[in-house]
């Protein structure tokens, strides 16, 4: 009979960065929730999400927007008295949801991450205006450029590159990536 792993073990196994501090060490004190700057926009607080993972409420956790609302600011991480890297746990949940292709409807995060990775695998560099233009229908790249004649010289004297650069050894980078994840053939 196949071994049934708990959801907290599955998520724990997806957190290389914090394997020393299992989610099961959580004492439900709520310091993470009190610290989180994005909590008002989450279906469940970080404290509740950890409790729900431990209670094996996989479907409820995955269908919430909590982990996709995390801004990765690590404020919860540095304050957790049990030493749990909660921000990394949110990343683990994002990976799990991408892997299972299962998430709350209407979220931009999963598609954004996917496009971002494709962009880097294709060119080696990221380029914000293109990403922004893709994901902000109400706020296109030209709007950004129009708005951006700003104090710090965002678009400084036309010096901003209009297109992303490709790194020189992009083929080597792609071949290196192939030894980590299957990315198939690229144009």
């Amino acid at each position, binding site marked *: 009979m196949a071994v049934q792993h708990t959801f907290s073990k599955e998520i724990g196994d*997806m*957190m*290389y*960065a914090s394997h020393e501090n299992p989610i099961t060490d959580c004492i439900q004190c709520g310091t993470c929730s009190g610290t989180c*700057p*994005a909590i*008002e*926009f989450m279906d469940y607080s970080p404290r509740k999400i950890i409790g729900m993972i431990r209670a094996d409420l996989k479907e409820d956790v995955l269908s919430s927007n909590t982990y996709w*609302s995390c*801004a*990765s*600011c*690590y*404020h919860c*991480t*540095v304050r957790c008295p049990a030493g749990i*890297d909660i*921000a990394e746990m949110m*990343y683990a949940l994002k*990976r799990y949801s991408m892997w299972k292709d299962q998430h709350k409807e209407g*979220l*931009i*995060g999963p598609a*954004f*991450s996917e496009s*971002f*990775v494709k962009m*880097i695998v294709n060119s080696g*560099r*990221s*380029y*914000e*205006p293109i*990403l922004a233009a893709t*994901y*902000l229908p109400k706020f296109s790249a030209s709007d*950004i450029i129009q*708005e951006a*004649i*700003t*104090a*710090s*010289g*965002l*678009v*400084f*004297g036309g*010096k*901003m*590159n209009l297109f*992303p650069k490709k*790194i020189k*050894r992009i083929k*080597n980078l792609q*071949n*290196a*990536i192939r*030894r*980590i*994840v299957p990315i198939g053939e690229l144009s």
Partner: protein
Amino acid sequence: MKEYAYYPGCSLESLGKSYHLSTLEVATRVGIDLKEIEDWNCCGATAYFPVDEMLAYTLSARNLAIAEKTGLEDFVAPCSACYKNSYTTNKYLKSDPDLAEHINYALEKDNLHVTGRMHVRHLIEIFVEDVGMEVIQKSVTNPLNNLKVAPYYGCQLVRPRKNDENVENPRYFEDLLSALGAEPVEFESKSRCCGGSLIITNRHAALDMVEKLLQDAVYSQAEIIATTCPMCNVNLEVYQRQVNLEFGTNYSIPVVYFTQLMGTAFGCDSKSLGINKNVIPNAIERSLVKVD
């Protein structure tokens, strides 16, 4: 002249161009040489980790491997996200031989090898720790006339914790501003998150986070906000108008990179610092009028 392996990161080639320009200008003034590493790639930002953790570390490892080849000791990143990703990757490479072996197997394809021997540091640490306040103070020709500046550290410069440093109330940015003749204000939200990449994926949440920061900067009586990261700068500056539209507020607080303030105090012309308007002189003037 001390040399550093300099990793600008993608933002400094586009939206953060002025950060790049002012960084190089200011570095020359205080006698440090930032040598840009060749053919660097994206650090993975925050959008990589949701896809594959190993892939994210491999990307940062390639930059570290390229830097190691230069023979230099310090790897310097001006962007806080690049800094955090490079720092943690380096740490794991050093402490986990299995991870290093796997990543090196991949990097063979680019004839690279990484050991994790670089000291990964944020740009502001170079100025504060290596150059030091004395040299910075000596380079000041146009002191900032007690301009009230909110030192905005942001999140990934300070967190996650590296050693036993003060993550709740760091003070080195304040010290740097004082050395320039500015007056750092007590800015409670100095390491509260700006919303970072949520500006694209969860606009409403990010604007709310930006609004809270602007509110606190005004409450702290800051006349200008200084940043240490291109993401923070873009969120606080470019989206101020959006915040005003959404929240019915009327913020118009200038946001500049800390290197632009340094350059202004060093007497560099605003063009070489990538400043379009005379925001800093204007802010100083306003501040002087108030004192009178």
